[in-house]
């Protein structure tokens, strides 16, 4: 049964889902674009699927599921026996992945999400970047990444010696900060964080996501 993703290939949260599907070697999915410009995501038909009016939402048979990190976790569980072991191979591996997914969704996401919104998404809506907000959030992000730097000097990946959903979840916003906003110094100036970023963004799954983004 084809998984339907209502979203946009170029969107940060949709790309998190797509990258997970590719890592898990799932091919039977389709992206049904949501026309954000015309406000499709705020119309009743969309709100019936995703009541907060944000993308993406998936339909997999009789399951409707939203929140990209929840969708990614679901894909990892549904396709546990194929593709990359994005949750590791034990209960404690999985717990470490969850720990760093939580760090990503809070400590990391708040400053980088705010910075990327100011630098990139405001521009799409014809609004002006607030440089002081960018500065403050890049500074917070840098402090968080200082902690990552120490951790990644001792561990190849966040949850240990295996690439996991926790690493993958960082890709979309790192991509937007470094390659779209061109403000990635806080990342690339840190030796181990940069090496980790280079490694995870060179994976075939992420290259495929970038192709889909470019096609958008």
């Amino acid at each position: 049964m084809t998984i339907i993703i209502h979203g946009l290939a170029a969107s940060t949260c949709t790309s998190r889902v797509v990258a997970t599907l590719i890592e898990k070697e799932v091919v039977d999915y389709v992206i049904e674009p949501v026309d954000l410009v015309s406000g499709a995501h705020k119309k009743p038909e969309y709100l019936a699927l995703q009541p907060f009016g944000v993308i993406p939402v998936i339909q997999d048979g009789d399951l409707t599921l939203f929140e990209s990190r929840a969708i990614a976790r679901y894909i990892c569980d549904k396709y546990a026996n194929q593709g990359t072991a994005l949750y590791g191979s034990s209960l404690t591996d999985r717990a470490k992945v969850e720990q760093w997914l939580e760090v990503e969704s809070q400590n990391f996401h708040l400053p980088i999400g705010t910075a990327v919104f100011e630098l990139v998404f405001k521009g799409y809506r014809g609004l002006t970047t607030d440089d002081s907000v960018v500065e403050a959030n890049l500074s917070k992000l840098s402090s968080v990444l200082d902690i990552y730097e120490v951790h990644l000097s001792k561990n190849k990946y966040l949850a240990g010696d295996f690439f996991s959903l926790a690493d993958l979840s960082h890709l979309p916003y790192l991509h937007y900060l470094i390659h779209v906003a061109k403000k990635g110094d806080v990342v690339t100036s840190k030796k181990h964080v940069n090496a980790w970023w280079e490694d995870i963004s060179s994976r075939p799954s992420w290259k495929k996501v970038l192709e889909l983004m470019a096609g958008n």
Partner: protein
Amino acid sequence: MGGIKVIGIPMSTCTQRVLVVLIEKGAEYVVEPLDMMKGAHKQPEHLAIQPFGQIPVIEDGKFKLFESRAIVRYVAEKYEGQGPSLYGKTLHEKALVEQWLAVEIEEFNAPITAAVVQLVLGPKFKGIPADEAIVSASLEKLEKVLDVYEAQLAKNKFLAGNFLSIADLVHLPFLFLLVGVAKRGEVVTSRKHVHEWYETLSSLPSWKKVLALAA
């Protein structure tokens, strides 16, 4: 085996999140308090196990884990065979639990934290009076989120379906601070199904036990 050691304080919301799940699952645990007022959470000994300088951290034998929402998932998985199934019973149910866990972080957490910091934590710990403009703005945002919860809870007794899950429980500590401590819970009590859901959660024996530990 001694059970799980919880490094934190029962008065803290994130420690409470972990405790309520441990108690629901009937898991053996012990609390090792950390002197936050003396800044113990920023000392090297604590930073070695939680580099962001936060609480709680658990130690399960040699295994250490931080982030309260990661810990509750670990407890729910590890003790799957005992107590209520806080992750649902099927792949679909588990996915919906994850969905509402994500909603708690993405939509619910920021506005309720902002309100509670103003109404309870600022006054209590820093002697700073509440800024009512921030309270108003935060509660307005929270109301929009709770409108979605109201629609969801009209269909099911709990967020992920007709079963209690960790998705419901993670909401308890901040809801209690807003409704039970700050006494500013109109945004909850004015919504019929959200109110019923809150009453159910806050009446759980496990939650009452957490409050007793926090006292």
